[in-house]
């Protein structure tokens, strides 16, 4: 199955614990859709937790697609030098197609 994790609002230091709890891989997940399309602001705390989760998913051989819409968030990824570390999409349908191709669903 494709596990979906959806977060919204401002992802900053004050939500570090919540991010770590949310970024948990289900035992039956074959792929993960991280829908962050309603995130309005993100900081390096979010990037660190995203990296941690991506490493976890890579170990489990589960591809991750991240949906980001906010220009601030997209530029943050660039500034941190992580543009190639994540598979980022601008809209959900595109991300789901990418994951479906990789899971054979």
């Amino acid at each position: 199955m494709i596990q979906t994790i959806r977060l919204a609002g401002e992802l900053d230091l004050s939500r570090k614990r919540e991010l770590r709890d949310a970024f948990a891989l289900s035992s039956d997940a074959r792929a993960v859709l991280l829908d962050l399309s309603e995130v309005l602001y993100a900081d390096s705390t979010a990037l660190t937790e995203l990296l941690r989760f991506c490493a976890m998913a890579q170990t489990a051989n589960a591809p991750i697609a991240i949906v980001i819409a906010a220009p601030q968030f997209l530029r943050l990824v660039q500034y941190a030098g992580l543009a190639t570390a994540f598979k980022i999409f601008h809209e959900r349908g595109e991300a789901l197609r990418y994951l479906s191709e990789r899971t054979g669903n």
Partner: protein
Amino acid sequence: MGRSELRLRRPAQTRSVAPIRRALRAFLEALAFEGSALDDITTAAGEALANAAEHAYAQKTKRRRCDVELLARFERGELSVEVSDGGCFIERSPLPGRGFGLRIIRAIAHQIQIETSHGTRIRMLFPGPLLKS
């Protein structure tokens, strides 16, 4: 446009970061910053504030009040944003933990100065907004 200034001091706690960041954004909007410049300056300041709140008071004691202060000043077409604390600013390598903050700040600010003589102060300089004629 003359000189404008915003000065805020709050306890160095994680929950102080967002209100200071939002106040800075409102200040910048009033100065006619917009679009990516508005986002980027807010992002850089947010990283400095988060770093201060998370790390600056690692050695704090119960008797000592721990604050973080932001001073934004717009003068002669240039914006400076300073974030200061009474602890020590931590410059870390980007991996594996939280350490992207300084990298992000350096990518955004036109100039950055870090002073550690009396507590720590990070000063970022940015060009003024492009005013529509």
